[in-house]
């Protein structure tokens, strides 16, 4: 018992290590670890005393314990090494996570646009739903991580090997890209030009109605409803331009280009949904007066624009379905 009083600091150290040791319910196992650790440290202290020719001071004892490491660190070395998601599973985890996040954004965007278009949700509710996207992304991230962490735990626990990367065939790899297909920077920028021009046109419209009405701008004006959809459409145009730019930089494979097209068409559908919420686009200003001919013209224009938008939305929806079909078919061919 002499050592217990001589090496008070050591006992305190052991107590601290026990606090962090695994096997919390197996006190015998913990006792065994601490007894062994204590015996080793005592031997080291005795060696040091022999070397110095005197009993160790508190500072000298502390130096030896410090060399062993923080109690938490020392205790942690006795636990089983466990990854949340180990290197064998991580590539699959990262791939699934990216797909899940993209799908989450697409599905939410389309569902919200449809709910808005059919009149279930108001513009405010749609914007609110979009503002919740980061939170939904966090939940998606958490679920994917939990599933893969569970898989990792099962693989470690039952000491099995995952064979998800074993069943692949080199002959299904994508064909080599021809060097000529890579767009040169000038051509790439030219692909963005229509989007940039349209955006500039949209920005100029509020102050220059003649850019849409021509000479008819003398007796035609925007309806009050146009002010409500102007800003959302502006945001969507910027998003579409961003998608186009991103596609030019990153979309190298054919399927990536189709994927970019799918995303762009989804954005376009949302734009159509926003526009179709409006029933009138033009009106006759009060200053012009209640001339019957002008009122009829405004009515015809509004009807034509509505029909045109519906046809446009149907065409985009159809091409979107075709793209999705090509994407799925292409993926199946690669298998």
């Amino acid at each position, binding site marked *: 018992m002499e050592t217990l009083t001589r090496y008070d600091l050591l006992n305190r150290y052991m107590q601290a290590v026990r606090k962090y040791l695994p096997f919390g319910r197996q006190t015998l196992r913990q006792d065994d*670890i601490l007894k*062994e650790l204590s*015996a*080793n440290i005592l*031997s080291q202290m005795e060696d040091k005393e022999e070397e110095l020719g005197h009993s160790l001071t508190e500072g000298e004892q502390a130096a030896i314990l410090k060399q062993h*490491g923080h109690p938490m660190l*020392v205790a942690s*070395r*006795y636990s089983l090494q466990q990854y949340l998601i180990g290197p064998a599973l991580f590539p699959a985890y990262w791939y699934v996570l990216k797909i899940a996040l993209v799908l989450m954004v697409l599905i939410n965007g389309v569902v919200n646009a449809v709910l808005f278009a059919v009149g279930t949700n108001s513009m405010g509710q749609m914007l609110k739903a979009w503002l919740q996207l980061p939170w939904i992304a966090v939940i998606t991230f958490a679920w994917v991580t939990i599933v893969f962490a569970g898989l990792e735990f099962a693989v470690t626990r039952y000491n099995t090997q995952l064979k998800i990367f074993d069943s692949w065939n080199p002959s299904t790899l994508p064909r*080599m890209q021809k060097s000529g297909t890579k767009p040169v920077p000038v051509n790439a920028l030219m692909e963005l030009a229509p989007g940039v021009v349209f955006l500039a046109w949209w920005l100029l419209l509020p102050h220059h109605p003649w850019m849409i009405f021509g000479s008819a701008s003398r007796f035609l004006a925007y309806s009050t409803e146009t002010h409500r959809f102007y800003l959302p459409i502006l945001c969507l145009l910027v998003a579409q331009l961003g998608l186009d730019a991103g596609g030019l930089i990153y979309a190298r494979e054919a399927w990536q280009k189709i994927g970019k097209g799918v995303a762009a068409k989804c954005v376009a559908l949302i734009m159509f949904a926003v526009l179709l919420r409006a029933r009138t686009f033009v009106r006759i200003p009060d200053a012009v007066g209640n001339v019957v001919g002008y009122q009829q013209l405004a009515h015809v224009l509004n009807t034509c624009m509505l029909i045109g938008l519906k046809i446009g939305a149907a065409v985009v929806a159809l091409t979107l379905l075709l793209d999705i079909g090509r994407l799925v078919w292409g993926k199946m061919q690669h298998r």
Partner: protein
Amino acid sequence: MTLDPIQFENLRMELRRGCLVLAVLAQLRAEHYGYTLRKALAERGMEIEESTLYPLLRRLESQGLLVSEWREEAKRNKRFYRLSGDGEQILQQLLEEWHGINASIHRIIDPSDSQIIDPPDSQIIDPPKY
């Protein structure tokens, strides 16, 4: 390019990690308890931190490569470890592997020692450009 000391340290640790098990198994052909084992390894140039060595001993024992017993020595109970039958077999296999790796590295470092014959120039095909 400047040398990153942290990068070197990480690579050094990675290189040492596998060798530590080999060194511990080899040293435990003779019986030791934790502290004397650490001293014996250090005397032969293989310094190991206590917080690495002691848990490693338990792990190797749980894998059946070591056996241990509590025994009194110098008026204190200590846990003595030595190589088990399985441990001896594994050690032999690991040593063969280590010698093989060592020889390969030497051949790579010193090409005059290499047995690999370079193909004639006509057979060399340029790799595709990506």
